[in-house]
């Protein structure tokens, strides 16, 4: 994997998420009154659905990179060896389980979000 690709993905995804939050905030501020209809009309438009879907993909990418960094820092034979040597021998298994678990949760989370948005 490219170091700069991972680094850029995390930084740019955070900026894109920030822009989305500003966009949502500007919508809320610009409305005289927020009610169910104005809120659902806004979020049911194709553009906002598409944008929201994209943002949640960014959230999952951003979160997974962060979790990958945590996993490769703390779930190594060296770091776990500080706790217990027998645990350290299973570092690779623990790390892969950790990556798989959070990867799976990310997919489930994203699928659920896309289901809610589009169906």
């Amino acid at each position, binding site marked *: *994997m490219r*170091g*700069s690709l991972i*680094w850029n993905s995390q930084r740019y995804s955070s900026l894109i998420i920030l822009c989305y939050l500003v966009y949502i905030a500007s919508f809320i501020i610009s409305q005289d009154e927020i009610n169910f209809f104005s809120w659902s009309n806004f979020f049911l438009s194709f553009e906002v659905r598409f944008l929201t879907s994209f943002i949640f993909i960014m959230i999952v990418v951003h979160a997974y990179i962060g979790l990958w960094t945590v996993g*490769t820092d703390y779930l190594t034979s060296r770091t776990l060896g500080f706790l217990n040597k027998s645990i350290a021998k299973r570092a690779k298994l623990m790390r892969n389980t950790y990556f798989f678990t959070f990867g799976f949760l990310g997919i489930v989370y994203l699928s659920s979000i896309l289901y809610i948005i589009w169906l």
Partner: protein
Amino acid sequence: MFGNKLQVNLYRYNPEEDKFPYMKKYVIEKPKRDIMILDLLHLLKEEDQSISYRRSCREGVCGSDGMNINGKNGLACITPISSVVKRNKIELRPLPGLPVIRDLVVDMTEFYAQYEKIKPFLQNETTAPEQERLQSPEERDKLDGLYECILCACCSTSCPSFWWNPDKFVGPAALLQAYRFLADSRDLKTEERLEALSDPFSVYRCHGIMNCVNVCPKGLNPNKAIGEIKSMLHKNKKDIIVTDGV
């Protein structure tokens, strides 16, 4: 609490005798004038000959006596007692993250391996001029704040990323030196140097927490150098692909 006494808590570990490291308390007369931590260690060594630590130049040039002084890495020879003492107590530990050989002496193999990895020498295969390769004053200025590093390891051993991945993350000290050669107009291996640093660990494990800047006894800024390397890597499209292999 101690009046004219000074309590020194010293990390002790002799692998031939001790099963585990321990902290030993020494109480000595408070020196009448402000002395350096290294002088304090000399005083303690007069009392207890078994205390081990590295020292050489005793003036902040050789980088031998890097240690953790009251929780902050620094050079014992240029750290006055008055600047670190808290309630008449001083705690001395070895540099964190590196294997302890004995007392305050650490095994620097991993640190030097990273230094070796960045090829800390000028690489220029063009025919050498009769006298020397010249630089303009502007080109030379770029090396200020980089070449002064004495490799004391205070920065790298205060960096959590280096603690967790000392075999993969190059660390602030070696990265400062990597940039020293990247910024050198006489060095012609910029592409190769950047390629060697473009994996997810070598440079990108730096999260910019700036512990390195906080502890550097020479007042250098490895974090800025790492930022410059990242900028160069972003401009350089020749990133290499590496596998996880943790």
